[in-house]
């Protein structure tokens, strides 16, 4: 709201005095070059609109985080700062169990997804084989089909094969983990393939000429080159697993509740600052993992391209 009202005030002023727009541009460090015909990004209308959109995109999340520190049970008006609800969440055994479950599933799923995704990426990058388009299609199918379809399919599948429901921890998390791997590793494969595009195959040939076996080439040449892609892929798999709600919702049993499932049942039960506290923790973890993943992917564009 503030950004758009600011915008409304500025735009006509800038139009009246072109010198001012340039001064503003200079103050913002954009040099003195005149506005070219394609400099649409310099339009204050567009900038104001985008600022308003980003405000709307982040304000609810910011509010959620701020209100997790609100000293009020009903959490409607600000009553003062407290960390009570974090302490409360910490002492909520079910919530902590759900959190531990989520982390266990995410860790296992990340490990297996990274391996499977890398395998799929290497196969599609390296080999010509009959059924290659089919292979490629199969590994991208989990990305395109609606989550709810995959969720109900998993539910019916584990029910049909008679997946035992009375397994002890951590085996009770097995079916959720299997489902998470199935939808996560195709994303890892995409990220790793993007990284492989820049790989210089002469390095491989040089190693082979020097007597390295195929596996040695893979281990000592290709994998070290892939490292940023592997980390980025692992981060994506981790976030996908930790965040997943829809597919987990259909596969979770009473003894395999994950954090998003627990948050969902808490929301249904009533809105409390404890939900805000639990959500804030989840946000912190997944956003940190994403920022690491994005940072890792950036150098991947360097070799060969641009």
């Amino acid at each position, binding site marked *: 709201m503030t950004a758009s009202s600011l915008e409304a005030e500025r735009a006509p002023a800038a139009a009246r005095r072109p010198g001012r727009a340039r001064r503003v541009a200079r103050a913002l460090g954009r040099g003195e070059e005149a506005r070219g015909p394609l400099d649409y990004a310099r339009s204050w209308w567009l900038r104001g609109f985008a600022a308003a959109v980003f405000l709307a995109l982040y304000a609810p999340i910011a509010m959620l985080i701020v209100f997790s520190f609100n000293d009020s049970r009903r959490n409607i008006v600000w009553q003062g700062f407290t960390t009570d609800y974090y302490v409360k969440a910490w002492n909520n055994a079910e919530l902590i169990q759900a959190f531990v479950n989520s982390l266990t599933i995410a860790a296992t799923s990340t490990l297996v997804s990274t391996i499977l995704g890398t395998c799929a990426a290497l196969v599609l990058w390296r080999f010509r084989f009959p059924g290659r388009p089919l292979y490629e299609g199969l590994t991208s199918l989990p990305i395109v089909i609606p989550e709810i379809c995959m969720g109900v399919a998993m539910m019916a599948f584990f029910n049909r094969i008679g997946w035992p429901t009375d397994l002890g921890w951590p085996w009770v998390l097995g079916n959720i983990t299997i*489902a998470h791997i199935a939808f996560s590793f195709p994303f890892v494969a995409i990220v790793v393939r993007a990284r492989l595009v820049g790989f210089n195959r002469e390095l491989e040939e040089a190693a082979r000429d020097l007597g390295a076996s195929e596996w040695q080439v893979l281990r000592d040449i290709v994998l070290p080159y892939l490292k940023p892609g592997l980390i980025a892929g692992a981060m994506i798999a981790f976030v996908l697993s930790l965040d997943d709600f829809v597919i987990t919702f259909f596969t979770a049993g009473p003894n395999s509740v994950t954090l998003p499932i627990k948050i969902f049942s808490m929301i249904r039960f009533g809105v409390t600052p404890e939900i805000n506290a639990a959500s804030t923790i989840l946000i912190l973890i997944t956003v940190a993992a994403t920022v690491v993943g994005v940072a890792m992917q950036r150098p991947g564009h360097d070799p060969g391209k641009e």
Partner: protein
Amino acid sequence: MDDWKRNQRIFWPLALPPAVWLLVFFLVPLSLIWVLSFGEKLGIQEIATTWTLDNYAKAVEPLYASILWKSLRICGLATLICLLVGYPVAFLIAFLRSSMWKALLLLGVIIPFAINILVRTFSLIAVLRPTGPINAAYEALWNGAHAVLGVVGLGDALLGERFTPLMLMYSNTAVIVGIVFVFFPFMVLPLYANIEKIDRSYLEASLDLGASHLRTFVSVILPLTWHGILSGVIIVFIPSLGYFFIPEILGGANSDLIGNVIERQFKSANNWPFGAALSFLLMYATFGALALRAVIAGRRGGGA
């Protein structure tokens, strides 16, 4: 690329594990659901595969057809809003000159991806409720207008005596807001990828030949980004039909979408064959949309 036969000792260990995993834990479950959708419910747990089409016929019965129709309307409107809001933002990011700002704004679009969709949906409750910031702003506006009109004695006549907050929560409006909010980044990224790729010399040519900026946008930019628009629309519209938790958290008694009906068939109503048929209708819609996109991409010769 190497031929697979020359390096079978590498090929099989790499190719098999992902393929087997998807075969067993993805294709088999989907096939199971597909077969179930032609099944008949006998008892509480018993389902006989009779290859009946009754489950699909049930989906067009008035009760479910109206939910289907409402889902298409609500999700369609939400997708349209997403597009109208997302296009200018993607456009701005694509035309930014500073690479730092570009990276920063892109990160700004990507971060919401990482924030749990359930948490993002939940965060809207505090914004939309009668005591939330939207109503606070509306109340301030109302009070201002009431006071101003009160000077000429029209305040009560035009605006009523007392402020009544907008009842945004637990309504279809809230569901639409929720879908737009949750899916916004999904719309922006394909649009950005497409707009970014436009050859700028086309735009310069259009402007040099005397077309206005508006004309250039309508006749050059828009057709060139048609593919990105289509990708964004598909990526928002189809999944939004299945996100049952958005109506569950934000919607009212009449806000159910197809996703809620599917969820109920599996979780409480316990009519798996019908739920399976509904989810396969959603799958067919997905494949249809993807095929349409492929056809259009083929005709236009590539794109994003």
